[in-house]
């Protein structure tokens, strides 16, 4: 059997084209190619530029006949999922940063009784002094804990808000027509 026809059959199988329809298309194609060869014509004279991309040719024929049962292009869905994951991960990072800032501020507001102290009691071995109290770690004039807490809290919340703001238009953006039709002749 012609290699081109074999490649088409593989694609039709992948697309879930019923065997009877696939066999019919393959038989017609093979007979036409054989006749063209006997006439001294090139395969391109039969297949047009479809000759250079068997998969695309096979998919466009099956879709045009309405016998393909699965989408030939799962890629856009995968792209959308990766995009969603990126947004969710970024939003989580921002929330963690904001939470860190809030904890620093809460610890500062209650004097030296910070969450870090609670950690110290719960851990079985000595904790490095930097975890005992943020005051001791950020020692120095003016004590930098409170500004740092505010910076983290604001940065986290602003980042989270920015992601939500960006998310809405991006989530509703449709992929360009050219992306959705990759590989298919545009006359379809």
């Amino acid at each position, binding site marked *: 059997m012609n290699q081109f026809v074999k490649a088409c059959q593989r694609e039709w199988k992948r697309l879930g084209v019923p065997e009877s329809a696939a066999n019919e298309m393959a038989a017609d194609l093979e*007979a036409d190619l054989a006749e063209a060869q006997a006439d001294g014509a*090139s395969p391109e004279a*039969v297949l*047009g530029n479809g000759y250079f991309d068997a998969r695309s040719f096979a998919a*466009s*024929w*099956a879709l*045009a006949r309405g016998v393909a049962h699965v989408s030939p292009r799962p890629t856009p869905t995968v792209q959308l999922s990766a995009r969603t994951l990126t947004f969710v991960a970024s939003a989580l990072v921002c929330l963690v940063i904001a939470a860190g800032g809030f904890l620093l501020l809460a610890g500062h507001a209650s004097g030296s009784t910070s969450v870090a102290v609670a950690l110290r009691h719960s851990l079985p071995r000595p904790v490095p002094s930097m975890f005992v109290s943020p005051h001791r770690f950020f020692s120095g004039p003016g004590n930098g804990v409170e500004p740092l807490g505010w910076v983290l809290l604001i940065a986290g919340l602003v980042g989270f808000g920015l992601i939500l703001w960006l998310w809405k238009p991006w989530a509703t953006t449709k992929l360009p027509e050219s992306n959705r039709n990759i590989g298919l*002749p545009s*006359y379809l």
Partner: protein
Amino acid sequence: MGESGGRRTQLLRGVLDLCLLAVMGEGPAYGYEMTKRLGERGLSIVGEGSIYPLLGRLERDGLVDTHRAASNGGPPRKYYRLSGQGRRALAAGISEWETTRDAVDAVLGLATVEVSS
């Protein structure tokens, strides 16, 4: 593909289905036979899209009827012929084409172009 080739492709894209219906109007034909009929009139599909997806679409839309029959000494082939709906679509398409062609001719026919090398 050059600029003129790209334009030819674009122009063909809009009328290739009509051309297929027209050659089917001369009598039932299988895929390669239609390609040959088009070629005899100077319409080669080399470098253009294949006719098979178009035939599939015409069949799906009910513009053609199909049947299998033995070809001249070869294996059985799928023959396409115009359906009643296809005849009406061909008539409407020819009318649209003539109107468009006349309008474009009226514009392009007035143009005088000097090309310096």
